């Protein structure tokens, strides 16, 4: 009896540190997806390609002996350029956003294979990654936790700062109400181009860190990145209400990304035998649908009464 109870608990304990580390690394992608999907109101598929691009560029550069910091920066710049490309397809050629993203993703699939020297994968064992020194001094797990955590917190902090500035606020207005934004003198096309660049630079940074943490890259490592990113966003928003201040929403996204990793790892561990790593995409999609469905059925009523109350209060005050 006791043993039966203990098994899940040990499972939780075993998967926790690794999942949190993974969650930190993936949360940078998640914040990128949050920026495009929630702030700009654009479902941008390019992250599938740019996530992998960050990994492949970093790996290729590390292999020829480029310092890790430079390799990561070049990877992120690659993501930025790809994001700008998607945004230009969308704003200047008027291609629907979803198709623009898919086109970029397709182009990047070919590019990623070329970056890896016409190979589908590349091992990074023995290369000087960001985590390596720390991993030798402690353990790979601790190194991933610390490096991932630092980058995740820096990304949350930087996003909070950026979207609180005058420029960042104009980006939020662009996503929320482009007509109003233009009427207020905001160049909405310009904002979309820059912000999709930033969003994809974050995706690439996330991919670069994952490549280093795994000591391995594959050209298709970004496959499913959009769903994983959305899962983090959706899980985060399940706990943080939309009316809460912006900082909470960002922290919610970070938490959602970590939570997603824990849930997936637990599902694989506890249902070992039924589910394999191949089922991860299935579990992810079901998880997103479940959370969205729960939100649909629970959140509608209380939100409405709240808005009525405010309007009524204001009206009462005017009488």
């Amino acid at each position, binding site marked *: 009896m006791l043993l039966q109870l203990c098994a899940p608990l040990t499972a939780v304990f075993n998967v926790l540190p690794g999942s949190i580390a993974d969650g930190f690394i993936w949360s940078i992608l998640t914040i990128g997806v949050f920026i495009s999907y929630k702030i700009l109101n654009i479902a941008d598929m390019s992250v599938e390609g740019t996530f992998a691009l960050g990994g492949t560029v970093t790996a290729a550069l590390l292999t020829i002996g480029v310092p890790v910091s430079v390799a990561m920066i070049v990877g992120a710049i690659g993501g930025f350029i790809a994001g700008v490309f998607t945004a230009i397809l969308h704003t200047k050629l008027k291609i629907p956003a979803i198709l623009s993203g898919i086109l970029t993703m397709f182009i990047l699939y070919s590019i990623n294979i070329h970056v890896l020297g016409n190979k589908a994968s590349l091992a990074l064992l023995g290369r000087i990654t960001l985590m390596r020194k720390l991993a030798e001094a402690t353990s790979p797990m601790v190194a991933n936790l610390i490096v991932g955590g630092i980058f995740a917190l820096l990304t949350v902090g930087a996003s909070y700062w950026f979207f609180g*500035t005058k420029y960042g*606020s104009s980006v939020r207005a662009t996503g*929320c*109400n482009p007509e109003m*934004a233009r009427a207020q*003198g905001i160049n909405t096309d310009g904002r979309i181009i820059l912000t999709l660049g930033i969003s994809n630079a974050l995706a690439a940074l996330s991919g670069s860190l994952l490549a280093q943490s795994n000591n391995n890259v594959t050209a298709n490592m970004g496959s499913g990145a959009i769903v994983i990113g959305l899962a983090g966003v959706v899980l985060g928003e399940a706990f943080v209400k939309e009316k809460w201040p912006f900082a909470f929403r960002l922290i919610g996204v970070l938490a959602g990304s970590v939570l997603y990793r824990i849930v997936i790892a637990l599902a694989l561990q506890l249902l070992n035998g039924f589910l394999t790593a191949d089922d991860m995409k299935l579990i992810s999609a079901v998880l997103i649908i479940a959370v969205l469905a729960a939100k649909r059925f629970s959140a509608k009523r209380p939100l409405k009464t709240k808005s009525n109350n405010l309007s009524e209060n*204001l*009206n009462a*005050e*005017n009488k």
Partner: protein
Amino acid sequence: MLKINNVVKIFNKNTINQKIALNGIDLELEEGDFVTVIGGNGAGKSTLLNVIAGVFSPDEGKIILDGKDITNVPEHKRSADVARVFQDPMKGTAAEMNVEENVAIAKMRGKKRGLGWNVTKEDKKKFKELVSQLDLGLENYMSQKVSLLSGGQRQALTLLMATINKPKLLLLDEHTAALDPKTAEKVLEITSKVTQNQTTVMITHNMKDALRFGNKIIMMNEGKIVFSASGEEKKKLTVNALLEKFAIVGNQTDRVLLS
């Protein structure tokens, strides 16, 4: 101040759905003029406002604001000089942002938006004072998302945002049409407060408002200005006189709608 020269706007040019929305409009406004625009549905009132605001360029003609040809200046660059309030109360504000963030965005209209904090402590105080002038109690809800406000409150806020940095020209596109009569009255009160000495173009469907507001009036039909009056001549106009003009230009259906 504002000079509109022979402006023509054709939608779906050279197709079977071709529609001449503006057919040679000439209009001149002096500084401080307040012109009300009336006319039936499809008369070209909103198209005229959109051409002035730069939502789209005219096919022919010129728009000159303060001596500067702005005919082909893009919308977002024009908005430093030309402010707008839309008919739909949802269009003028960013719903997911709070009241003071919206005001802060309007405050930067026509200026370079840098990396300084959007709403500083000092701004908070200033904006609260500005919003309290609306007399709606909104100043107690500065950090509430605009989506929680009613249509009238949002429209009043949009008016404040449009006039916060005095624009050269204010465009009001039936901005009270979507509101209930009592709220519309309140928003009109605010309108007259914020448009003191403000060059304004206001479209309205309400004849009484068209006569009550402004020193000039124009009536549009099928993309043309068919009647205009200003000063003393406008003061003498009555709703019935306007309806008669409508009958002459052949808008029988509108006559029923408007009376």
